[in-house]
């Protein structure tokens, strides 16, 4: 298992956001994390990606314990997340947003930036090529030199996905990547996510509310409610699971209702 989460818990000021999360994600899979609002999905992402520290429990990535590592070290280890509300660097261009995320740029060290300009320039050219390819993939090429702050919400979402790919992740955590993205682009985005897995072997874990999307893209679905994992299995089994149906019916009108909405 690439990602292994064991008995992880986190509370904020006495309120348990996650009381006992245990699940794993297989390498090369697309796994969805679903559940009603407040189930603790985003908190799980924050815990796994190191942006919040767990109160207890163990998290391993690629055989290495990561629950005490900071977010930037987890990202360097190959586990990269994107945020629910996109975090683009507004007063920088789209290209700068992308190139910033390129990994192993020696010019980020002061000494190399000053003393080895040629090596830095070579690496910059590589990063630029890669950034332009990715921008073409997410259809933002025409905005390359625009300030990221001038982008729409959906475009920012795409830019954040592109930026995460610049890190060359082994696994990527997507928090509602479809929210705010136009339906036409949604289909393309889904295809890109499938391609990512097929061509580059990237493992994908995704939080999503749109049940059509979840059912069509996932190899496996993990269902959370009230801070715990209540079901875990392939899409067909999840659809008929009585606990899952109850969790959804009790709050927001059922799984199939969500799919048709």
């Amino acid at each position, binding site marked *: 298992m690439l990602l292994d989460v064991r008995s992880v818990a986190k509370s904020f000021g006495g309120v348990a956001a996650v009381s006992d999360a245990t699940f794993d994600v297989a390498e090369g899979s697309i796994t969805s994390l679903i559940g009603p609002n407040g189930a603790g999905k985003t908190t799980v992402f924050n815990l796994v*990606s190191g*942006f919040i520290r767990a109160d207890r429990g163990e998290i391993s990535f690629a055989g290495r314990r990561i629950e005490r590592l*900071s*977010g*930037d*070290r987890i*990202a*360097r280890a190959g586990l*990269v*997340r*994107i*945020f629910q509300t996109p*975090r*683009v*660097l*507004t*007063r*920088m261009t789209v290209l*700068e*947003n992308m*190139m*910033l*995320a390129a*990994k192993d*740029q020696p*010019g*980020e*060290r*002061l000494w190399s*930036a*000053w003393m080895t300009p040629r090596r*830095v320039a070579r*690496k*910059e050219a590589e990063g630029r090529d890669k950034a332009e390819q990715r921008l073409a993939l997410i259809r933002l090429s025409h905005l390359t030199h625009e*300030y990221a*702050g*001038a982008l729409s919400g959906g475009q920012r979402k795409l830019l*954040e996905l592109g*930026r*995460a790919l*610049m*890190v060359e992740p082994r696994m990527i955590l997507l928090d509602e990547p479809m929210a705010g993205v136009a339906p036409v682009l949604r289909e393309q985005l889904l295809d890109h996510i499938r391609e990512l897995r097929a061509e580059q072997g990237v493992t994908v874990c995704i939080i999503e509310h749109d049940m059509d999307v979840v059912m069509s893209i996932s190899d496996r679905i993990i269902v959370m409610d009230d801070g715990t994992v209540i079901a875990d299995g392939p899409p067909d089994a999840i659809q008929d699971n009585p606990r899952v149906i109850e969790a959804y019916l009790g709050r927001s009108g059922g799984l199939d209702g969500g799919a048709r909405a």
Partner: protein
Amino acid sequence: MDLFNPGFWTFVAVIAGIYGIMALGLYVQFSLAGLPNFGHVAFMAVAAYAMAILVVRYEVPLALAALGGLAAAVVLAVVMGVPALRLRADYLAIATIAGSEIIRYLVMSLPELTGGAIGSMGLLGPGEIALYNQDWQAFRDAIAGLVTPLLGAAPSHDEVTMALVWALLIGLIALFWRLERSPWGRVLKGIREDDTAVAAVGKNVVHFKMQALIIGAILGGLAGLLLAWQIGVFSPDDYQPTLTFYAYLILILGGVNRIWAIPVGAVLFSLLYTGTRFLNFFPLSLFDPGERAFLRLFLVGLLLVLFMALRPEGAFGDRRQLMLEK
């Protein structure tokens, strides 16, 4: 004061250059890395005091004492940065305000160490006047001697200092202009925009912030040393908290996030600040000179407010950047 006295304007140019170096330090911290430093003057004061104490008490050669002064500024940056940089930016603002006030109170309440309210003259205790500036004057005279044959006339002390300070300012701006455009500068700008996003793509944000804080402290310390050398003797009053806000004004006047506009901002600020000295004509001459001094500060404030209202992006800033949505 004579409006057409070149000696006066040379002095103004020296101070403008020193303020430019001070503002460059703040540029690295605030404009590049987004670190709100409201105690920049503390780096200046600590460097000046450490230098003067080393020279006067321990007879350290000036160049070494200057390095000691910069090292003291770095230590202060680390002491403030280690606890505050892990937290949100607001905490650094608080830490720097508190840090600079602590330095000021320490200076005032430890006269055996710092000379207290008398300042650098009192460093050897009462009864003896302490001077730290002989080596600097000798250095300036040596340079004046070197260039006299080239110029045909001996330059004044202030002219030598003006040339040194402005050469230093331009050289440092060229250096940081280049670094700003390097991948290092890009990471700092990213941190300014959203440090969480930069951490999420694998950059060690705390490490980069600490670098920016330390570099800003070194540049601030350098400005503090130059100011001490220029004025010859200094007291706590020469390192007032308002200096920090002069540095912000210089960045804003020149243009937000425009490194090469810093000298423009420094000159504009100095002109605003010293130029109002000459407002002694009717109707302002109706006030007596003491009242006019207050009026002068009032006019500086008014001009700055007008500048901000009519040209918020500064002389050379990019207006589009201001209008982007966060």
